[in-house]
């Protein structure tokens, strides 16, 4: 398979060599063997813990919200309400726009005082938010935008899943006289499991290693308050700590692996039961 060659050559091979570099002090120009020093130094990073916590919060929250909202919108758009084609297009539109563009725009929209979002909150009688400016809330501001941008994709995946559910199931349910909620809970939800799995795996992995939106909106700030693992690693790379950042990547990979592999098994097992 030509694809296999491209993939193995251009992705896997460099990835394996990066394992070697993670044990080197690597300035891109010279390498010096330092054993596990890079890993030790990476684990001693004073902001690592905060970054790990943020990574989990970010990944689980975005993926949870995308599953819930995406499924809701999918079901809604499969029902026979008016304008559903239009609504679907509107929801999907942000997926088409560049992350950098979205980041810049929301940075402006989320400004306190002059920002539109805070204006809406004030209009509803809420306090000044300035969500990106406070160390405690900045990460949640980015999470909101991530969900906003990505929920269209989740919706489309659900729509595809819903459309592949054979009509007989609905018919059978109708004959049995089940109500809407039961219908959803016992028929649609289990049959949607493959779609749910796809959304979970994609958005969870995406969330665990993503940082482009964070980078565009807060740069990990204020200070290091909204840094996630991937942005910390990027900061190392940018500082010229190439070996260190490679070691960080390896550490992140192990972390994701420990999380995703059991989860994948679990999700697959539920699929089979259906």
């Amino acid at each position: 398979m030509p694809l296999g060659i491209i993939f193995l050559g251009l992705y896997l091979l460099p990835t394996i060599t990066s394992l070697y570099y993670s044990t080197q002090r690597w300035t891109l120009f010279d390498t010096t063997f330092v054993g596990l020093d890079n890993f030790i130094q990476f684990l001693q990073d004073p902001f690592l813990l905060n970054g790990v916590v943020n990574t989990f919060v970010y990944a689980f929250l975005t993926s949870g919200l995308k599953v819930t909202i995406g499924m809701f919108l999918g079901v809604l758009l499969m029902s026979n309400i008016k304008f559903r084609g239009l609504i679907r297009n509107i929801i999907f539109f942000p997926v088409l726009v560049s992350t950098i563009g979205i980041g810049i725009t929301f940075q402006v929209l989320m400004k306190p005082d002059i920002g539109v979002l805070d204006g809406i909150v004030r209009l509803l009688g809420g306090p000044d938010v300035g969500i990106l400016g406070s160390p405690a809330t900045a990460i949640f501001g980015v999470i909101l935008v991530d969900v906003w941008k990505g929920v269209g994709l989740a919706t489309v995946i659900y729509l595809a899943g819903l459309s592949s559910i054979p009509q007989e199931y609905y018919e059978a349910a109708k004959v049995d006289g089940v109500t809407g909620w039961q219908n959803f809970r016992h028929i649609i939800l289990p049959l949607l499991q493959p779609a749910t799995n796809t959304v979970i795996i994609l958005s969870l992995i995406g969330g665990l290693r993503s940082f482009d939106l964070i980078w565009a909106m807060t740069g990990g700030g204020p200070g290091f308050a909204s840094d996630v693992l991937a942005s910390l690693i990027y900061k190392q790379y940018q500082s010229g700590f190439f070996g260190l950042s490679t070691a960080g990547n390896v550490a992140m990979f192990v972390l994701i692996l420990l999380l995703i592999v059991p989860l994948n098994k679990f999700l697959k097992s539920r699929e089979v039961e259906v």
Partner: protein
Amino acid sequence: MRSTKNARWVWGSFALAVSVLVFVVPFAFIALNAAKTREEAQLFSFSWPQHFQAWDNLVAVFEANEFMILRAFTNSIALTVFSVTILVLFAAMASWIIERRGGVAAKLANGLVLIGLMIPPALVPTIFLLQALGIYGTFPSMVLVEIAFNTSFTIMIFRSFISTIPRELDEAAIIDGAGSLQLFFLIVFPLLRPILVTAIILNSVFVFNDFVNPLYFLPGEGTETVQVTLYNFSSQYLTDYNLLFMDILVITIPMVIMFAIFNKRIVAGMTAGAVKG
């Protein structure tokens, strides 16, 4: 039946209003500010431009850096078309084989795909490799890089779809005696249509909106991609928000056109699926 018809309208209108509020308002903000003067755009207010100069801004966006945006469009579109075509074609075949064949090889391939999703690609070793092959910085190598980096994601979405297609369909074809390439293009490919369209749209978005990889793998003059044009108007010290917003709008247009072309097919594909069921 009247009441259900009314309900369709009421719920539909309500859902439309909410989605417009949540998803369209930010773009209205972009569009309004894209028509303002530099000074007015700096106020970031949600107001009608006092001095409407959308055309001037559009011209400025196109003229910036000696019409860089035109070169960028050419590069990005060429890159997107080539890499997405190859990627989607091969990924569809690969996922079909992985999903249908089973066994150790498929398990292994599955694991690799998962790894591919998890580890961010290693930039510098990839550059070294391309240099060793003597193709670094060439357009074809950029295509290969985009293909390699998006393989995992594409296979992932194909596989989850293929697993929902009943095996009997293609097994019947094998009994009929169709060869495997023939089988694939005549029988399987049409079945994949809905997910094919999705894969094309998503990969196009990824490749077209990719900022980092072209920056590293496609250096040199005249090779800018559209995302880089955003930096014409935003530097460390100075940001022209009106032009920046205009640029965001302009570089989104190709994706909107692409979406409009394929969108009908998504709907068609889905309805087909529902009816077929």
